[in-house]
């Protein structure tokens, strides 16, 4: 009657060294984090470009960026991941062949980062656009009066100035990025959720492994929250609290 507890509590399966699967899970977590960090950074860069484009670009650029952000926010991440992973990498390679370069061997990790980055980029564009608008325009005017080039203004005034306003939104997007990496399991990238299912499938202890993976994700979230609170306190020093 109670043997399901042994099925659940087969703790030795979580040991770090084989035949325990702990090492495999942690490696999967490492891949997940790599994809999340890489995708987040890529998304941030796309977001900066997108936000400046939306605020200071011409009407055509603004419309194109609107289409980009609307598309990404209207289509489920799972479908976007499939599209970008299969169709996107195929289109990329076809484009490379077209311009005469050699086909690239895009690893699962790189494709995952590309996918998460493109999705994050749309959301980051919106968050950063709101944050850019919050920078007092007088500071930008003063910088221009000093003769700073646009890039210099961006680097010295806008970016440092908008960061405190962007931190809550950016923090939320980081948590979204870490959880979206789980969707890459559907395309076979060896991140935590997929290796958990593989481990569960090989050992038949599904409950144990999914529970362990859940704990790992929760730890990432809780540690991130601690770090975010620190960053928020530092970035927003001297400013009224958000809530």
């Amino acid at each position, binding site marked *: *009657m109670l*043997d*399901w507890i042994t*099925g*659940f509590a087969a703790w030795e399966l979580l040991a770090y060294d084989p035949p325990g699967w702990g090492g495999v899970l942690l490696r999967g977590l490492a891949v997940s984090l790599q994809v999340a960090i890489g995708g987040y950074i890529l998304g941030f860069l796309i977001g900066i470009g997108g936000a400046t484009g939306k605020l200071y670009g011409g*009407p*055509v650029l603004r*419309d*194109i960026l609107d289409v980009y952000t609307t*598309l990404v*926010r*209207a*289509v*489920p*991440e*799972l*479908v*976007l991941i*499939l*599209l970008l992973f*299969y*169709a996107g990498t*195929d289109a990329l390679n076809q484009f490379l062949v077209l311009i005469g370069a050699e086909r690239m061997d895009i690893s699962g990790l790189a494709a995952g980062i590309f996918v998460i980055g493109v999705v994050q980029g749309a959301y980051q564009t919106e968050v950063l656009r709101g944050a850019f608008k919050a920078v007092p325009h007088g500071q930008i005017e003063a910088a221009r009066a000093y003769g700073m080039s646009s890039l210099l203004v961006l680097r010295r005034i806008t970016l440092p100035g908008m960061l405190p306003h962007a931190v809550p939104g950016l923090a939320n997007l980081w*948590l979204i990025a870490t*959880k*979206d*990496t*789980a*969707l890459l*399991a*559907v395309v076979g990238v060896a991140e935590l*959720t997929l290796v*958990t*299912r593989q481990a*569960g499938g090989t050992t*038949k*202890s*599904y*409950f144990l492994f*999914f*529970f362990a*993976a*859940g704990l790992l*994700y*929760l730890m990432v*979230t*809780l540690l991130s929250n601690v770090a975010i609170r620190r960053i928020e306190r530092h970035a927003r020093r001297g400013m009224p609290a958000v809530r």
Partner: protein
Amino acid sequence: MAPELRSWKEPHRLVLLAIAIGIVVFAATTMRWDWLPRYSGKLVAGVGTTLWLLFLTSVLGFLLAVPLGLAQAAGPFWLSGPARAFCTVIRGTPLLLQLWLLYYGLGSLFAYWPEIRQSWAWPYLRSAWPYGVLALTMSFAGYEGEVMRGAFAGVPKGELEAARAYGMSPWTSFRRIWLPRAIHRALPTLAGETVLQLKATPLVATITVVDVYAIISRVRQDTYLTYEPLLLLALIYMILTGVLVVAFRWLEAKVPVKGS
């Protein structure tokens, strides 16, 4: 702030529109769409499943979110603690993991209880639909519970004190003042949360629930096409999202929102 709405007839908009139409026509004529008639009935059924799933889990999730938010805002520690923990766990782990934990995790425990197959609950425990509904409902409740917590906490204390001063019992003041005002505060986010819920529904296809995503997956496997089925799926979701956004805007216009 520059006005966002501009006329459709501006030259650059017309050019972009022409390019977009050109792309659509190009896609419609050069890509393989011969599989469409064969699957059109299934696709419609799949969309129906998706919408039903969305409606059901959003309603149930909201009903669960209200007590969760209330418990966190005003409950004693033995209510607010578990509610807080529930919301933290749901928001801290991926939905896909929660879904697989429920379906395959619980499923693997069934083998230890052969008697369960004779029980009345068995037809529900063995099909995939209830697990999908449960996971999506819990997910919606977890996120919306946070929103409701903020909404309950944000209702001006003065109104509640005035209700007490009138001699209303706690239950009456909750029913007439606190709950409606909190829901009012949460309403603007509801549209966004429902769209997010729509975007979460395809995950149930991984536990064999047949929604529109599952049908398109079948098309992909039968035809080995890379682009066409996925593009159609993206289009379907875009249309559904658009319909949802318009519907919510219409609803919000009907519900008067006076200030906070």
